[in-house]
Each structure stands twice: as C-alpha cells, then as structure tokens.
C-alpha cells in the first residue's frame, strides 16, 4: 500500500496551524508575491512567518512544501531564485515547481531539497513526467485533474517518481499552466503573476428585475435569477451563448467541486502516493473540516476499515460535486 499522504492547503500561518493540528501529513504554501499560483491579497507567507510555520509543522511531524509554481517572465527570474534560496534556508521539505529554468536552478543549487512537479507543468504522459525526473531529479508529480484512474494506474507503471492527485476542491478544467484566460480579460497573468480571476476585478450588478450578474473586468461572466445564488465569476465556469445556442449555457463547465472521497481506495490501489486538498484561499473552518474528514477516511482505509466519509457537500462550490475525469472518460 502506498503512503497515501494527505497534502493540505495553507494559505496563511493560521490555516497552516489548523491543517497541521487537523492531521495533515504535509502542508503546501507560498510567499506573498508572484512566485506562486495563488498570489491573492491577504494570503501567503512572509519569510519570517514561514520560518515560524516550518518550526511549528516540523514539531508535529508535518512536512512543509513551498509552491514556486509560476513562470518567471524574462528579466524577473531573480525573484524566483531568491524565493528558492529563502525556502531552502528555512528548511522546507520540498519545492513545487513548474518552470524548467526554476527547476534547473534548484536542482543545481539546492540538490538536498526534494523537487515536486507542479500541476502547472501540465505533465500528463509518462514521457513528459520522465523528462522532468531525468533532468531535474523530480521526486513527485502532481497530476492534472484530467486523467481517469485506469490512466493513472498505467502512468504509475512507467514513471520513476511518486504521484500526487487532487481529491477535493476546485474542479480545474483548463490544462493548468496553459491558460491565459484571466490575462486576456484583466491584464494579470495566471502563469506570470499567479492570478486567476482576481477579486479586484470582480463586480456584482443587481438589475431592475432583481436578477444579478457577475462580472470580471467589465465582462459579464454569468447572470442569476432573483432566487439563484450568484457564483464567483471564473471565466471557465461562466455562461455564454453560441450561434446555435441562443440560451446561455455553461460552455466549459458548471460551477462544481471535485470530491473524490469515494474513490480513495481505488486511487491508493492505483499507486497514488499523496492526496492533495485544494483551497489555499479558503477559511480556517473549511481547512479544519475537510482535513479532519479526509484524515479519518485515510486512517480508516489504511487500517482496513470501511471509510466513513463525512458529508462534505456543504463545503463544495455551489453545493455540487463531481468525480470529474477520474471516474469516466465521458467527462471529456
């Protein structure tokens, strides 16, 4: 049986302590700048906060993974190198990287620290994963949320590193690290700035008929009736019209959360080493609820008991959940 580590989000020092106390095997976090893909106001760590947090986590036997998973634009690479140097100095257990230049720098400069390949690198085949393993000594790959369990099982047989998969949180549709939708509408880049649908560009508008529209940078992403709950305007979860579809429809995906709680035994059986819970931007109570529930579930499975997963649907987006691509190819 694989380790089935539970990798938990830590958007703030308080969330990190919450995740550690709730039983995370590892937490992942980032600095307060463009070096990570959740570069939102009010989130992330100063170097001092990270130092204290690493000490807290290590005291309780929890690992700390530092996300350096954006792509430095030319001329600004030093910010990523300094972040790696600081992380190594503070004793983080692994770096989560996507950019080849960043991976190369860390592999040469900090060979003692593990490298994990971020989902932002979009490595979805054994060959792509092996490229990063052989060139940068990557020890673990975070797989894109677009593979079925049989596909994961096949990949596992052909790669020399561990596998981490998302099990709960955002249901990402676009191949991560290949998406410029936010930059197209807002001028801030997911890849270079770590920004996806930034709150600073979000506006909700109430209309005279009591309907509500959600906007991003002045573009209407969705429209809700008076009795509907208005969702966050993420471009890939908006409603649009097409020439043969005059009624607005979810052209890419409905707002929905990924929840693989029922598939945990299958994922372990397929050789997945680590389960990732998404949500660095979420509250402490969210982190406590989700981490505790999955801790219990993983412990039950490891002890050979039937996992008794608490009902997590209240914590999902729009109270809707899916097993996404993991269960069936029909999703595509």
């Amino acid at each position, binding site marked *: 049986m694989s380790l089935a580590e539970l990798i938990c989000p830590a958007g703030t020092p308080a969330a990190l302590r919450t995740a550690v106390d709730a039983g995370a095997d590892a937490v992942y976090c980032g600095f307060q700048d463009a070096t990570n893909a959740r570069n939102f106001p009010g989130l992330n760590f100063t170097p001092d906060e990270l130092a204290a947090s690493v000490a807290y986590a290590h005291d309780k036997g929890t690992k700390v993974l530092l996300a350096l998973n954006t792509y430095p634009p030319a001329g600004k*690479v030093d910010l990523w190198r300094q972040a790696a140097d600081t992380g190594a100095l503070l004793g983080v257990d692994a770096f989560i990287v996507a950019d080849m230049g960043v991976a190369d720098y860390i592999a040469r400069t900090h060979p003692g620290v593990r490298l994990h390949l971020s989902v932002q690198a979009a490595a979805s085949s054994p060959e792509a994963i092996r490229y990063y393993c052989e060139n940068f000594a990557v020890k673990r790959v975070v797989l894109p949320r677009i593979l079925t369990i049989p596909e994961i099982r096949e990949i596992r047989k052909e790669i020399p590193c561990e596998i981490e998969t998302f099990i709960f949180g955002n249901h990402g549709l676009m191949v991560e690290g290949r998406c410029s939708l936010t930059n197209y509408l807002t001028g801030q880049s997911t890849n270079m700035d770590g920004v996806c649908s930034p709150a600073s560009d979000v506006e909700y508008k109430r209309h005279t008929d009591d309907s509500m529209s959600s906007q991003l940078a002045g573009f209407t992403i969705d429209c809700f009736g008076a009795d509907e709950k208005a969702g966050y305007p993420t471009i890939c979860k908006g409603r649009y019209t097409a020439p043969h579809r005059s009624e607005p429809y979810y052209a890419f995906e409905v707002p929905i959360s990924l929840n693989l709680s029922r598939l945990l035994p299958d994922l372990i059986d397929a050789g997945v080493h680590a389960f990732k819970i998404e949500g660095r931007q979420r509250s402490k109570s969210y982190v406590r609820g989700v981490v505790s529930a999955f801790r219990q579930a993983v412990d039950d499975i490891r002890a050979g008991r039937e996992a008794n997963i608490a009902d997590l649907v209240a914590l999902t987006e729009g109270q809707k959940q899916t097993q996404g691509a993991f269960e069936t190819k029909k999703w595509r």
Partner: protein
Amino acid sequence: MAVNDMTNLTLGPIAYHWSTQTRRDFYARVADEAPIDEVYLGEVICSKRAPFHEADLPATIERLERGGKTVILSSLAEVMLRRERKATADLAAMEAPEIEINNAAGLFARGKRPHRIGPFMNAYNEATIAWMAGRGATHVCLPTEMPAPAIAAAAAAARELGLGVEVQVFGRASLAVSARCYHARAHGRTKDNCQFVCEEDADGMPLRTTDDRPILRVNGIQTQSESYIGLLPEAGQMIVNDVTHFRLMPQAVDMVAVATTFRNVLDGTHSLIDGEQALRKLCDGISFSNGFYHGQAGYRRIAAAAAN
C-alpha cells in the same frame, strides 16, 4: 517603422479542422503566392483530426519547399492517449524536415537532437531558454501573453545563445487547452463521440456574454481570443529587440494578402498606416488587439501604440 527585409515571416500551423480540400488549396496558394519564409505544418490541437490530412503531408511539404518555403512539423500541444504519445514519438524521431515541439513528451523523445520550441512550451525566460538551448533547442516561439519588456529580455538571451526568436503577430491567441472538447459539449456530445462538429467553424465558434458582447472562440479542446492579435505597429520595436521571426496564425481570411501586407510594411515599401488599413479591410468585422504586448488585458487595443 524600422525597415528590415531580413526578418522572417512564418505561417503557424492551422488550428482549425479545415477540410482536406481547403487545406490543399490553402497551401498551394501559400506555396505560389505568399511572401512567407517558413511554414509550420501538422495537427497541434486535436489528435482525432490528424488522420484527415496525414496522407497529404508529404505532397504539401514538397509543394511548399518547391515554392521556396522552409517547412517545420509541429507536435501536439496535449499528449495523453497512446496514439498521441506515438504521434509525438514518431515526430521526434524525424531528421527532416525540422520539428517544433509543443509538449514535454516531445522533448523527452527528442533528446539532444536539434528542434524548435513551440508556443505551448512556456519558454518565458532566459533561464528556461538557456536550459532548452543546452538540450538542443535552436529556436523558440515565445508564449503569446508575454509583455514587451519580457520579450526583449528573452530575445536578447536567445541571441546570445544563437537561437531564433519568434512572436505571434497576427491571428487569434490560444488562451487555454483542456482535456474536454468544448465544441462537442456545445452540441451535446462528448469528445469520443464528437463527429468532428468543429469542422463547422473555420474560424472558431464564437461565444458571447449574456449581454451579447463577443468574448472568446472555441476550437475543439482549445479556447481562443475573440480578437485577432495584431502587432504590425509593434513589429519595428521587436526587430530592434532581436525578435527574428514573426508568426502569422492561419485564420479564415485571405492569408496571402495578410502576409503580403506584413511583408510590404516590414520591407518599407508600404507605410504602417497603409498596412493597418489593408489589414482592417482584409479582416472586416474582426477586432484587433495588442494588450498582451503592452502588459494590459489581452483583448485591448492600445491606441497610442497604433498611432506610432
């Protein structure tokens, strides 16, 4: 506008599911009439479409080469299925013509033999370009969303390393790729049962917001910009900054005339104002954008730059 008749004009791979006959006619005209130096061929977006035009490839290559064009074969942007892995490995095994790689699986298969880096490879910076050059890259096409200062810094680094540097200056930007086919979804189908419905939209399927504003285009698993990137006014600055190749993406407009317009302005035989006017006429009803280049929202048209 800096005059530079040494700058290469390239024609990117066709992103859409154009019919076999349309492709044949298109490349025959490009071969005979377009002032294009290099042509990228091959299916980059959806592996299901490849069988439709694979048989034509040798003849197309021969035709284009007879027309004086350099041909480069481009690999798939997304590689998951067995047939996609095989197609990528087969391409990487080729010695001629040149190849452009768009997925790390291709880099793995290619080893240190020479190759080009495609726009899907996220070569954003000098460190990554240096790494790639050390692994056999001879040329890099920068990501579409890069702003001017980063383009300049990347191109300077590439020049030092002896690599060609390419920037897309015309056509819809690729904004995202997915495992799901949005064309099939729009028609209530799945990717495996798509019945190639994407062939209905030669320039992508337009999406509009609920308040009827054009926003994006769907092309199978790819999401594109509604606007065409139009960097003719910025080309002079890019030449000064060591960009060596300008990429025109094939759209459903007269691409020979588009290429001729770019060539004429780059050569200094036509003014920028005349060139801009010609492009507007050729692409009637299409909006042009240059926001990415100017570090602003990609869809924007920065007027100050257009007036330069």
